[in-house]
């Protein structure tokens, strides 16, 4: 993007009209926005002009003049309902295109995890970095942010990327983007969440790839998320039941993630983040075929969202890569 036209003015006099555009999405949303604005300007100018001209041209000249009645015209009515609707359909189509393009991240997107909590954002990286109200991402690489909330609904909003997504407690949400321009951009909480809602703000730092690698390499004192998850797996006593390769009263977790799990009611489910999360918090909701309910205790209110994410990342790391969607055998026998 060329420097904005007000770029030459002294700082205090720069009045921006658009936020900086720093993601692949931003540019496409801006174009759509220009288009919408143009239609708006044209349509309202037409209407204002008509009102103005009629008001002046047909102003009342004597107090008892009575104009000829005009009752209407079917052709006109049809024209001015169909044409605007067709124009609006172009809005719809274009908007839906971008929206859908943003729906699912590319498979090679790197993962970042964000937990919203009254009133801060806690960010963690698979490599082990953790930050509060700061998000560091490399330029030019798709990044997927998995969003979780400890309490109420928040919303993860980065104006420079033209993206936001609500963070609803009790489930995982996600959004993804590819940053295009190094710099520091606002991160806001956009869903009202109580007292310090306006203080739940931070910064997104977009860095060049080498800077990012550099930044990644210092920090992460507590080890990667997988390592942390593994530690928690011991701490919470998961490992007392779930052993890595020996099957006892409970399923082996190696290879579960990403597979289709056979349940004892005959259904199968895809073992994704949401399923693992539910298995930990509400184990009895879905029972793996061949196992009993009520063996695994519920961990609701004992594991916070951050630790939950670490456990999931750990369990994910146990996945054996294979085509997603294949049905795993009952239990987890026969998996390596």
């Amino acid at each position, binding site marked *: 993007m060329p420097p904005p036209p007000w770029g030459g003015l002294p700082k205090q006099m720069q009045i921006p009209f658009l936020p900086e555009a720093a993601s692949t999405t931003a540019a496409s949303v801006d174009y759509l926005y220009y288009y919408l604005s143009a239609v708006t300007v044209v349509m309202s100018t037409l209407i204002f002009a008509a009102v103005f001209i009629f008001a002046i041209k047909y102003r009342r000249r004597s107090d008892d003049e009575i104009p000829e009645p005009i009752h*209407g015209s079917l052709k006109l009515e049809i024209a001015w309902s169909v044409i605007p609707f067709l124009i609006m359909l172009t809005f719809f189509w274009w908007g839906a295109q971008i929206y859908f393009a943003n729906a699912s991240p590319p498979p090679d997107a790197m993962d970042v995890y964000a937990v919203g909590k009254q009133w801060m954002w806690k960010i963690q990286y698979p490599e082990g970095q953790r930050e509060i109200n700061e998000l560091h991402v490399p330029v030019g690489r798709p990044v997927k942010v998995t969003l979780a909330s400890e309490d109420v609904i928040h919303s993860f909003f980065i104006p420079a990327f033209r993206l*936001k997504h609500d963070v609803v407690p009790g489930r995982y949400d996600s959004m993804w983007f590819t940053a295009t321009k190094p710099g520091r951009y*606002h991160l806001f909480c956009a869903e009202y969440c109580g007292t310090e809602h306006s203080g739940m703000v931070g910064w997104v730092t977009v860095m060049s790839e080498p800077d990012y690698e550099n930044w990644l390499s210092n920090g992460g004192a507590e080890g990667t998320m997988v390592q942390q998850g593994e530690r928690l797996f011991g701490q919470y006593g998961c490992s007392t039941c779930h052993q890595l390769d020996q099957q006892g009263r409970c399923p082996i977790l190696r290879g579960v993630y990403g597979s289709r799990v056979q349940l004892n009611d005959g259904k199968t489910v895809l073992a994704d983040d949401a399923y693992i999360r539910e298995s930990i918090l509400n184990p009895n909701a879905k029972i793996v075929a061949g196992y009993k309910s009520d063996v695994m205790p519920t961990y609701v209110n004992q594991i916070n969202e951050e630790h939950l994410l670490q456990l999931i990342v750990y369990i994910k790391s146990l996945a054996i890569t294979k085509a997603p969607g294949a049905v795993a055998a009952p239990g987890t026998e026969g998996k390596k």
Partner: protein
Amino acid sequence: MSTVLQDPQTIETPNYLNAEYGWKSWLFTTDHKRIAVLYMISITVMFVLGGIFAGLIRLELLTPQGDLVNSDTYNKFFTMHGIIMVFFFLIPSIPATLGNFLVPMMIGAKDLAFPRINLLSWYIYIAGALFALIAIVMGGVDTGWTFYTPFSSTFSNTFVITAAVGVFIAGFSSILTGLNFIVTIHKMRAPGMTWGRLPLFVWAHYATSLIQVLGTPVVAITLALVGLERAFHIGIFDPAIGGDPILFQHMFWFYSHPAVYIMILPGMGVISELVSCFSRKAVFGYSFVAASSIGIAVIGFLVWGHHMFVTGMSMYASLYFSLLSFLVAVPSAIKVFNWTATMFRGSISYDTPMLYAFGFIGLFTIGGLTGLFLATLAVDVHVTDTYFVVAHFHYVMVGGMVLAYMGGLHFWWPKITGRMYPEGWAKFSALLVFVGFNLTFFPQFIAGYLGQPRRYHAYAPEFQVYNVLSTAGATVLGVGYIIPFIYFMWSLKYGPLAGNNPWKAKGLEWQTTSPPPTYNFETPPIVTEEAYAYAAHKEEHGG
């Protein structure tokens, strides 16, 4: 109209105002016109209250630091502002005042079908308002007017139950008003007043009533569930036990989107009357304008999900709701175009009500078109929950409905009180309102696209320019509202007598005396012509 004080005589004809005296004659009245006046006084009080909160909001936002009040207080400001303005001012504004006064008169009835229920609805409104006031006095509510769970049901520690009960109660007053209108319009029309001859104001109120009757109960039960959840510390929206907060949003918006049409349809009805009267011409495409009211009411129930595009609702549902949101804009477009066409070859005068109508057409068009931005999926993702939305809804609610209310008030003031207001001052304040309004809310579109989130007590410094403009505008706007308040009071006593039909308007309400007698008409009217038949008796007017 000259503003020169003609010696203001007293009004001698028997009318609803001098029929009885004393406070009892008001508090126990079943006359729809008196009830309309009761409503008018109460919603004015609520508007001032909501306006004071608006003033405090704007004052706080003058500087980015959030240094006037603390954030809890600010959150209560915008919540109380929103709740009061929406549920206690704008929803009853035109229907319960002008609608109550005029619907029976326009169809040639002696009263609404259920006069006692009409009075009851006012008492219910007052009870609801009292709860809201109690909630304020005790310390306020901080959930936003949308009461989103689980914040409202579990986390907020303010007086949510009290406020929710207030809204719940006020809902029933709205339902009863709607019920009364529906039955009245079906069953009480004067001989000859066919559906095709109903004034568009009445059509608009019929459509509004449908929404009130079909939508309000859903928000009532939803808020009741939130209240119960708070009271018992358990309920159905709590994610901790498997509840779904998004379901609350579905149920809330099932009502609250159609409710925005409760907040605009009556205004559109007023504008149809004004444009026709001050162009001395039948409304262009009468049947389309009438049908579009019903269309808005029905299609309005199909689009609520456009408030939820980023909540994690299914993408396919987003598509569905986005598409239908554009469909609901079509009937609004029909109205705007037909009003404009009505002026074509008309005889247009610039009396104050018409100035408000001009303002309405302009501001509603901008507000509506920016609604289309929000209905566009990818754009909404960026601007939802920012000041862009705030600007959108103030354009339609204040620029649309409030201007329509002001226009209608000026138009029918002579009928309601029998007296004129000072035209010069009225024109001046209409201008102030228009200028002040744009200054307040236009900058918010830009701030919103730049990314200033709404419901923020402190904001990033680069947004300050726009907020300063906005606050400046709000001051002008406030003055613009105070002036009418003063001259309306003045005109009650000193305003020149208006006569029965100062605007030479059509419509049954102008055929009776000003103010009208208790049962509206000395002799029951019989209708023989279309609505707005300005040219029907051309010869009688001479020329």
